[in-house]
């Protein structure tokens, strides 16, 4: 069953009066439980595609379905609610709310969903343990390494039980060993819990760990492995 589907997705940016096409009619399907890597050089449209899939930006034309819901037809508030309920995000860097501890960052999304404080705390600690951060729950982001911060971001992304986790070059600012460990954690979550991951990267080591690799160039999908 598809948890994500795009149809003829196009994105054109206006820049100094010029139109720059970032995506040209992208058709993509991702099934539940997949571990997908989107690969391509800088400027190939990876981030634009992830932003459109996540409802952070609106396409010029085409549609995006998450769990068969057309997010391009939704209002801003509906997209906010959809992101909260069905999509987890891991960004390249500075992912966390700096005034909250690791536990509180993970709790944040659960509290937004209306969960009680005690239950959210318990689940946040359990989720942090899943990504190997037990004992570091009360540390603020500035007291954590880059790799640890990304793990907190992963924990937060999976805390609400989303249909899909989108990660935009999550290892780009990590050294290779830390990046490798982060990908292993994501892969483990995919194996054990069946969480769907779609991430962009151009790190060969990360690409190797993906079960399915989608290649992009100049805003088009080139092929899949």
């Amino acid at each position, binding site marked *: 069953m598809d948890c994500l589907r795009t149809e003829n997705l196009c994105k054109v940016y206006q820049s100094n009066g010029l139109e720059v096409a970032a995506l040209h009619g992208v058709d993509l399907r991702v099934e539940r439980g997949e571990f997908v890597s989107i690969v391509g050089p800088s400027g190939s449209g990876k981030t634009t595609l992830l*932003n459109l899939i*996540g409802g*952070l*930006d609106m396409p010029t034309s085409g549609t995006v379905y998450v769990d068969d819901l057309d997010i391009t037809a939704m209002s*801003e*508030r509906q997209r*906010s*609610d*959809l*992101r*909260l*309920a069905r999509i987890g*995000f891991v*960004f390249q860097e*500075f*992912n*966390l*709310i*700096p*005034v*909250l501890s690791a536990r*509180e960052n993970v709790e*944040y*999304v659960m*509290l*937004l969903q209306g969960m009680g404080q005690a239950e959210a705390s318990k689940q946040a600690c359990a989720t942090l343990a899943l990504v190997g951060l037990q004992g570091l729950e009360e540390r603020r982001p500035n007291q954590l390494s880059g790799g640890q911060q990304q793990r907190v971001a992963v924990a*937060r992304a999976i805390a609400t039980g989303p249909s899909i986790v989108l990660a935009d070059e999550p290892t780009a600012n990590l050294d290779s060993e830390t990046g490798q460990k982060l990908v292993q954690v994501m892969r483990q979550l995919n194996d054990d819990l069946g969480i769907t991951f779609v991430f962009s990267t151009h790190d060969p080591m990360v690409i190797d760990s993906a079960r399915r690799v989608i290649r992009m160039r100049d805003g088009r999908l080139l092929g899949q492995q």
Partner: protein
Amino acid sequence: MQLFSRIAWRNVMRNRRRTLITLAAISSGLAAIILFFGLSNGFHDQWITNSVRVYTGHIVIFAEEYRDERNLNRKIENSDDLIIWLDGMPGVETATPRIHINGLVSTARNSAMALVRGINPARETRIAGLRERIVEGSYLDSDNARQILIGHKMADRLNAALGEKIVLMVQAADGSIGAELFRLQGIFRLGAVDLDGSLAIIGLKDAQELAALGGGVTEAVLIMDSPADVSAAAAALINEFDRAGYEVLTWDQLMPQAKEMIALSNVFTYILLVIILAVVSLGILNTMLMSIMERTREFGIMRALGTRPAQIVRLVLLEAVYLGVIGTALGMTAGILLVTLLAWEGIDLSRWSGAMDLVSSLKPIIYPALRPASVGIASLAAFATTLIAAIYPALRAARLRPVDAIRSL
């Protein structure tokens, strides 16, 4: 603590220097407003007190219809009994009888129109501090010593010297012209331009004889312990005397122009309040906008995670609430302390006492006065200003597009 309250509080504490600057702007603005309110209230109190003591009294009782034509036949009889009775009323500081007659004051060389005031010397000095206001000569010895006191401006105009003979001429109650010879006993300076140039003071019995009033007086004047008691006392007196042929009036009915000037002065005070708060709000707006700009990416992340725009507005406004509560508390404390300290000694305005004369101030010292209502209005206004100044930054943060905000670094 609720989720957004917790984040808001930590954001406020995050950049302490900026928070301190914002708090300083709010609290110093509020303290300045409270001080200005205090000065304004103190000035009004002083002005009213001085005007009341020199001109009218807090409450004045006239015989009915006397005020229409200053008809001396409409007088208060048995004033001694009335004054003793009034003296015994709760809240009354002093009661005194007065006679006011228009007349002519003449020396051997000059003459001038005058408002002649017949007084009980012992009681009157408790009201207007007349004995202390004598700048040359001395106070009246008794109420029938044929002595006269005149203001320094009138003395200049008449070119009169102490001990000189002065003739007072008035139209008496019986229609005859009353004329008596007095000795210039003293020259006073009340600090009120009009009275220093036109008032002539003589003993009560001398005035009664001069104007053929028998034992009557034209008015009974009351000074209350506190201006706050005036309305209640006046109401009680009206209830007591209305059917007995007396008219009871309060100072603001007798000096409506004074009340209007205070109202006008209050308008200027409020204009100043608005100006100070406008400046403060610009400061708050500036620092909050800086804070929002610095956290653009953070707001983008929050929006990406599913935080609604309204929740972002709530977060930023909560930060303003914390700043407003702390800033207002600090400003209120500083303002109250300032006013209390200055009220202890008073602010000496004797350097500008010429200007003070125009508003009939006896003492050129202002004692700032704290009023809970003024402090409340200023504090509420400062708090509301902080919130209002945060609305634009809050909306701006909420309107950020997640995709643009996340991209910004």
